């Protein structure tokens, strides 16, 4: 009895704690609040499935508790048998047919929502962007040839068509507020889309194990008005060296190049030898992946210039 009370108390505490934190936000009981039509329709489908499964959950678990309480042994001997029923054909039919009907309803809802989730609304000028997954960063190519790392700039209210590819291993593109995942597969081109409703910054991270720094492979989608977007893309080439260093190199070599998983760079004279540096960036060496295998010449030069002027602190004194 005391054990049962302790269990009930513990369960109540857990429920309270969960409810408490849940009240603080949507609590994680539903997907992240959507900011794009595909994400909204996914959430709608989620609620429909939730309604049915929650009902079944309550019925099954409820019956289980009722039966356990009502038919428990009490002071009957172990030899006392329960009612010797072997089955009931009509009941079997009911609990076969009713779930089939429920699943059909769920299926129909999914197919009704599907077009709004899978395909972008017809737009006169969708913004076409290529998302390329790399160990361990995201690279974005804009229509005007600009390129950014880890940060994607888009205008609010415009359909963004994403062409998702990978340069090395399988990654998975996922910004929860802007819709579901799509794998970035080497050798295969995938497509997804979103249309951000509100301005703001939306984060997500790679969802398919892609190696050592999988956990560091984060992406931010910065949604602004059309003017802000134009400005960000115009500024992108000038910032490229810095974003490359911080998005690509710093993951392993530290934010100041002081080392971490990768060696200390800030006093490595290789940083001043452009050809050697760029060869390593393009082809990798030892434990270092070929992070820059798909980089353009301008992009490589931008990195070389940035590390020379901002990261290199001179050769280490005294060896």
């Amino acid at each position, binding site marked *: 009895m005391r054990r049962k009370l302790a269990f009930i108390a513990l369960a109540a505490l857990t429920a309270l704690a969960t409810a408490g934190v849940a009240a603080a936000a949507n609590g*994680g009981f539903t997907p992240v609040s959507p900011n794009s039509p595909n994400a909204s329709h996914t959430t709608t489908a989620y609620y429909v499935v939730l309604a049915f499964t929650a009902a079944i959950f309550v019925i099954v678990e409820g019956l289980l508790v009722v039966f356990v309480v009502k038919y*428990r042994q009490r002071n009957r001997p172990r030899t006392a048998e329960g009612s010797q029923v072997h089955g009931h054909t009509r009941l079997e039919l009911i609990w076969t047919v009713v779930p089939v009907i429920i699943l059909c309803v769920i299926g129909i809802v999914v197919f009704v929502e599907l077009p709004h989730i899978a395909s972008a609304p017809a737009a006169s000028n969708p913004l076409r962007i290529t998302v390329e997954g790399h160990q361990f960063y995201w690279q974005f190519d804009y229509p005007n040839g600009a390129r950014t790392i880890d940060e994607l700039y888009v205008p609010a209210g415009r359909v963004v068509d994403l062409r998702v590819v990978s340069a090395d291993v399988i990654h998975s593109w996922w910004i929860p507020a802007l819709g579901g995942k799509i794998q970035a597969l080497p050798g295969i081109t995938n497509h997804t889309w979103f249309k951000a409703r509100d301005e703001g910054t939306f984060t997500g991270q790679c969802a398919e194990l892609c190696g050592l720094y*999988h956990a560091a492979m984060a992406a931010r989608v910065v949604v602004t008005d059309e003017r802000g977007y134009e400005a960000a893309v115009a500024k992108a080439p000038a910032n490229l060296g810095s974003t490359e260093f911080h998005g690509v190199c710093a993951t392993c070599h530290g934010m100041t190049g002081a080392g971490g998983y990768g060696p200390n760079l800030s006093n490595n004279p290789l940083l001043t030898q452009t050809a050697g540096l760029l060869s390593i960036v393009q082809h990798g060496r030892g434990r270092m992946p070929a992070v820059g295998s798909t980089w353009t010449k301008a992009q490589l030069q931008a990195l070389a210039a940035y590390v020379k002027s901002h990261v290199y602190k001179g050769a280490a004194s005294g060896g």
Partner: protein
Amino acid sequence: MAVDVVETYPAPTWKSGRIASWFVTVDHKRIGILYILTALGFFVLGGILAMLMRAQLATPGESILTKNSYDEVMTMHGTTMIFLVIVPIMAGFGNYLVPLMIGARDMAFPRLNALSYWLYLVGGIVLWSSWFATGGTAKAGWWSYPTLSEVQFSPGHGQDYWILSLHILTLSSLAGAINFVVTIVNMRARGMTWMRMPLFVWALLTYGILLLLALPTLSAAVTMLLLDRRGYTHFFIPSQGGNVVLYQHMFWFFGHPEVYIMVLPAFGMISEILPVFSRKPIFGYKAVAFSTVGIAFFSMLVWAHHMFTVGLGTGLDSFFMISSMVIAVPTGIKIFNWLATTWRGNLILDTPMLFALGFLALFTMGGLSGIFLAAFPVDWQVNDSYYIVAHFHYVAFGGIAFALFGGLHYWWPKMFGRLLDERLGKLSFWTMFVGFNLTFLPQHMLGLLGMPRRIYTYHHGGLWEVYNLLSSVGSGILALGVLVFVVNVWRTHVLRMGVRASNDPWLADTLEWYTTSPPPPGNFDTVPYVTSARPLRDLRVRLAEET
């Protein structure tokens, strides 16, 4: 006669030594016990890896495990629990119980049976020796997708050890599967028609057939991966014309039946325990038996629901959504029949029954969260997040492991001759039940909040931190529950405080309780003619009528 001459050779005396006899045994009961104890050993090892991961994720930016060893620990945890714990422990229970339940003296091929066990042990040792391989263990997760698992991105030999280990384990399981199918088809007691066969035996028959159908594809996939890595092929290397999605198809063509290979024997255990402790026959024997076969059939047609985010296109996605929903129907039939089995029973809430009822509560949750995953647009949102981790642990731990602990407590007296302590058993159940829910319930929420699986750290505070901490605390409680079980075993056998078991301490229904606990070599002197699915109850009724 020539046959008699062979039998008159005396066995060398060393073969009957206390320890040596275990190495040379071909007795299905001893092999079963070897399987079960080895799998429990690996369960403890895999559990320690899980505790390490939960410790690493308890708070943001933790550094208990470096990212390198986190990937090793995560890969080894998954591979160990699936290939070295659940699949072989089911083979262990099957080995021990199937001949006894069908009234046979042993398995059809006793030597092949011994080979299966020893191959399993070798496979396990190969996998765990990869901690000492150049570059450490495999790090690409239990499904090891290329190109990450290709030599360019996974240098070192850990991945090769992983492949070798899977090859050995596959051979072990194939030999075992053939043995089960042949034994069940050919060696049932007189009168034991298909419809009088214990439901656990039905489950093991389907387990065997599914293994035979699914495992060759896994062997092929990992062989191709090995050739890519160490030969000169490029099946999965896109820059040379290979295709990474091919591996995913091959892996999951094995991988989804594998889920049912693991869960069907657990279902079988529940179908044995619930009626005995409800003092009733199973409700809808035929429905439960045929739904097992139905699940097995459809389990071969649902593999790509693991691949909805690959971008297969609406046509394929829709097909696999519908097939995945179809498989929910026979699963639901089972749950409703189990529930109806308890209806108007005399529910004896001993430890095996508690675990069986716990299974029913938790597996229902795992099944229902699966419906979200079958609806593929919803899956695009929750796939590869902690929601998935929560879902499959509700199936694999809440479902399968709870059934296993129920089975361990139920058949323990038959196997080892002593009853486990009821008080400690109940304590272990409640600790595990609370710990399990605290560990895995918050992980659903983490997934919906956007936490991907297989990350070694995170930097979000707030709800991410709260749920992760709750989950880590829960994993500690869960481990305590397992520890109570170990203490119970210790108390029963090492301190010899366990009560000696009679032939049939639970007043059960099936033939394994007809013989002594533990049974002698050869199992039975005679086996009664079987006239129903509950031969032991028939005997009890007849005895009562005679006196």
